[in-house]
């Protein structure tokens, strides 16, 4: 699908918890699939502090109703402002941007790991591979029970596993402490998105255990479509690669953390 810049109306803005909202956009032109890992770059209207756009992974989309959604965690001025817009207001959105996760082979056992706002691409990914395999395990990590969001929806698209740092829900600890990692070799593929230290740790374990692993990076972006060269990650074979166009999805083996 070609990328476009469009003024899209907010269909719904749902507060999921204290610091996270779900923003559903009306996208009447949406005729093709959005791919898991792709993102949208949103202009923060009326912000006196946020000059550049802000990138967010596609969480879900629906070609029938012509809509897609983002999960936005309030971490600074831009995200706080975005979560304040009401249904009906229009925002300028560039999408779809970036490359997709590669898809698993038929019937492979797959592990999707999301941490923090990195859970977003795991929903679209789980749905995208549902026709390929039924062995979809989704491991989500958060600080505490109240930080876990959209669990009912995730439960519908895979076998859900949870961790919390304080042990208030699921297993206690970080995602890599989860008991799934005791038998990590049983998985054919791992896909992950979240804070860099988490993805690095998962990538290291995957490499050690010879499990193919893809990570979706969240580097700061100037443009989102490959022209400013600000978002680079260093890689082993290809030097600096643009997270926005060469990624955001990379093979864990490639990334020099």
């Amino acid at each position: 699908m070609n990328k476009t810049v469009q003024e899209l109306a907010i269909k719904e803005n749902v507060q999921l918890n204290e610091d996270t909202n779900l923003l559903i956009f009306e996208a009447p032109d949406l005729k093709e699939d959005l791919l898991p890992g792709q993102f949208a770059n949103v202009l923060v209207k009326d912000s006196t502090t946020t000059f550049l756009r802000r990138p967010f992974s596609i969480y879900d989309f629906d070609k029938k109703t012509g809509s897609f959604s983002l999960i936005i965690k309030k971490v600074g001025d831009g995200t706080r402002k975005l979560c304040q817009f009401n249904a009906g207001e229009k925002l300028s959105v560039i999408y779809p941007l970036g490359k997709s996760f590669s898809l698993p082979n038929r019937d492979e056992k797959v592990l999707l790991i999301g941490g923090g706002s990195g859970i977003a691409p795991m929903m679209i990914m789980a749905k995208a591979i549902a026709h390929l395999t039924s062995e979809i395990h989704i491991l989500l990590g958060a600080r505490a029970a109240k930080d876990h969001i959209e669990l009912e929806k995730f439960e519908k698209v895979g076998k859900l596993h949870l961790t919390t740092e304080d042990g208030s829900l699921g297993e206690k600890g970080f995602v890599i402490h989860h008991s799934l990692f005791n038998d990590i070799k049983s998985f054919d593929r791992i896909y992950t998105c979240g804070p860099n230290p988490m993805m690095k740790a998962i990538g290291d374990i995957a490499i050690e255990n010879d499990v193919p692993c893809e990570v979706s990076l969240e580097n700061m972006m100037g443009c989102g479509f490959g022209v400013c060269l600000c978002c680079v990650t260093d890689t082993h074979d290809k030097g600096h690669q643009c997270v926005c166009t060469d990624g955001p999805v990379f093979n864990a083996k490639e990334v020099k953390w």
Partner: protein
Amino acid sequence: MVNLKVKINDIELKNPVLTASGTFGYGYEFSDFIDLNRLGGFVVKGTTLHPRQGNAYPRMAETPSGMLNAVGLQNKGVDYFIEHIYPKIKDVDSKVFVNLSGSTVEDYIIGAEKLNEVKGLAGIELNISCPNVKEGGMAFGVTCPGAEAVVKAVREVYDSTLMVKLSPNVTDVAEIARAVEGAGADSISLINTLLGMAVDAEKRKPILSTVTGGLSGPAVKPVALRMVWQVANAVKVPIVGMGGIMNATDAIEFLLAGATAVQLGTANFIDPEVTVKVVEGIEEYMNRHNISDIHDIIGGLQL
């Protein structure tokens, strides 16, 4: 119909709207968004003789009405450009300029010699003002002898249009402009980025891996306008103005101050369709003000 055509040396642009180096990739990245044929021209990413990896991440910081970048001229080198990239854009009905950078005068010369062989290229924009590389770059652009030396050397080997891009990080930009004109520049473009810095107070660290970087965007517009005005009063060659242009009104301000054409940089990140909107906005302004020729705006500031 209004006339939007302007000339830079003997290169005719269909309108005065170009894109700024490092903000427009090689043009084709924008083909989903706009019709590249609508542009007066575009200046491709800063190119050096040898490939460069650029600086480490983070290379960007947001600032009030602007941004800092410390990309550091990441590019695949002039040979790669000529062989693999230029063929993809040479047929666009617009003018292509290559932004050429170097660490030594020798680098600039060899790069220019290679580009001199490229048919259909409108010209070189000689970048003697990049604040984001340790050696060379801005160093040439902040003294008259430095600027003169590199422009003279390139002029000797380069036959097409030689546009020289000035640094704003100087005490007297008019003096540098005169030196550059004297050394044979066909045109002067300005401004490159202002050297700036951003700090993360919570982490107590610089935000950029390089500590300092180049400031661009609306924040720099007043400085850019002033420098265009000063240079326009100092030299005779056509001036290409840039720095914080976000819309047609901004562009017209630069034209009034004396620029023959403008470049749009950071604005492309915020609205990838901005260039075409600016072309249309200039037309609309001319119609509204009953101006039939863009030359009646250029340098038309009434004191």
